[in-house]
């Protein structure tokens, strides 16, 4: 398989084929396959340790895989000749712990990557950064440091920061898990707006209500394999596998 195939939008934007991943002796992913079309919203749910976060980290090459293939826009992610930095310009990621740069203000956090990595013009980037922060409803907080913002506000800055790079795919790794219930809503609204604008999103989440409303497709993982998947309506109404039923029974 060549590293760069001519990719067209009728092919999956993210194609995960039979991926195996292990940290030393601990097997984390054991034969995971997944396809995401452009503009789709995919929610991955499952118990802790089932490999969901690792799967996301394999997509933007933060974590190497042992076997199988992951392609983003036709490019084989784990091809040793691939420039990882080029890939990461197309795939944005938002983390559970926000991971904002504490020594920079909100607007500086958003501006840093386009200026340093994409070498774009500072005034343009600044204008776009202000627009993005306005979009995530953080007008007035541009010059605050992360330490002065609440968890929900920090997470929205993190989303704006990833969007500043104009990615084609956004990965969300349990982004609301560290927030209290009132602030969860403000972040979910932001993600929902993003999805409605047509951004391809892969979310690892525990927010079942959100998943049911926004997802195009649901995946349930357990112990490194995808146990079941389907459209949200079918998935929540008629789970087929007993493990899925047990998990949903505990959560819902």
């Amino acid at each position, binding site marked *: 398989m060549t590293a760069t195939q001519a990719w067209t939008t009728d092919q999956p934007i993210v194609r995960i084929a039979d991926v195996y991943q292990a940290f030393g002796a601990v097997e984390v992913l054991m034969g995971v396959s997944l396809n995401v079309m452009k503009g789709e919203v995919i929610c991955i749910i499952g118990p802790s340790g089932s490999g969901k976060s690792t799967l996301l980290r394999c997509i933007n090459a933060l974590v190497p895989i042992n076997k199988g293939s992951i392609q983003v826009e036709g490019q084989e992610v784990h091809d040793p000749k691939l420039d990882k930095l080029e890939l*990461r310009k197309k*795939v944005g*990621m938002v983390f559970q*712990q926000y*991971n904002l*740069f504490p020594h920079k203000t909100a607007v500086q956090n958003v501006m840093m990557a386009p200026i*340093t990595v994409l070498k774009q013009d500072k005034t343009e980037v600044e204008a776009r950064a202000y627009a993005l922060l306005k979009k995530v409803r953080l007008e007035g907080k541009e010059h605050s440091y992360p330490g002065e913002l609440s968890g929900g506000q920090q997470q929205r800055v993190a989303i704006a920061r*990833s969007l500043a790079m104009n990615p084609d795919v956004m990965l969300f790794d349990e982004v609301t898990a560290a927030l209290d219930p009132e602030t969860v809503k403000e972040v979910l609204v932001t993600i929902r707006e993003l999805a409605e604008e047509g951004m391809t999103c892969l979310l690892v989440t525990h927010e079942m209500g959100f998943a049911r409303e926004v997802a195009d497709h649901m995946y349930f993982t357990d112990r490194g394999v995808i146990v079941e998947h389907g459209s949200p309506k079918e998935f929540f109404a008629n789970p087929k596998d007993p493990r899925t039923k047990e998990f949903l029974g505990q959560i819902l």
Partner: protein
Amino acid sequence: MSGTDLPVLLPAAQQLAERTRREREVGGPIPRLQARHGVWLAVILVFSAGAAGAQAGAEQESVLSIMLKWTPLLLKGFVFNLAISFLAMAGGTIVGALLGIWQISLLPPVRAGSWLVTQFFRNAPWLVLLFFCMFLLPFQVQIFGYVIPLPDWIKATFGLALPVMANVSEIVRGAIQSIPSGQWESSESLAFNRRQTLWQIIMPQCIKRMLPPWMNLYAILTMATVLASVVGVSEVMTLTGQVLSAEGGRTDLLVPFYSYILLWFFIYCYPIARWTVRLERHFAVKT
């Protein structure tokens, strides 16, 4: 009395625990300077000078006037010590910072080599390193046709810069490794390369963490500059010895003069130690 099976008194145990906790945060032994130490030094100085004065006859100079007479010379020597400490600290910090960054290099030989150098100079006695440098460094070097003489004090400064370099290397490495891995992950996912991540994201966050142990190291280095007297450099200890023999080797002058010098070191190092404790407390609240 309800028994306690502590082998030491509880207040002493609590003090020990508190001191250990602070030293762990600062990253090394804190000079245990207290204001009362300075007061005691001054008391010793005054009493010993008084005793010496009482022993002296009417025809001999008073101890106070002897000390004042020699103060300008000894001050010059003390300033020389401080100069050695500045130079050794500057040189050691620059090379040590590089060494610390190389310790986390992706290339195994660079990592191993810098680790080895750090461990060697960190665990070698400072005086041994000083002797090493005095006898192994040439008395002059030729660079591009220019002959540069290397006087003793430069060799001593170099010898003191070596353990500083090793300690700074550990301070830097420790600070970098204490930054949460989430910072590396998020900057990688924003397509920063390793150099950009290190210099724009990680290092700025490290500066604050490195300041207290670095200042601590400087206080220790300043007190260690008197080791240079052992290898013959003409700094304050050597000068004090010469002054004492110039005054006829009077044994009653020993304590006054040496406690005088001690007092100068105290006056210089005490504010640094207190400022270090304040900095450490200031940064501890933030994290």
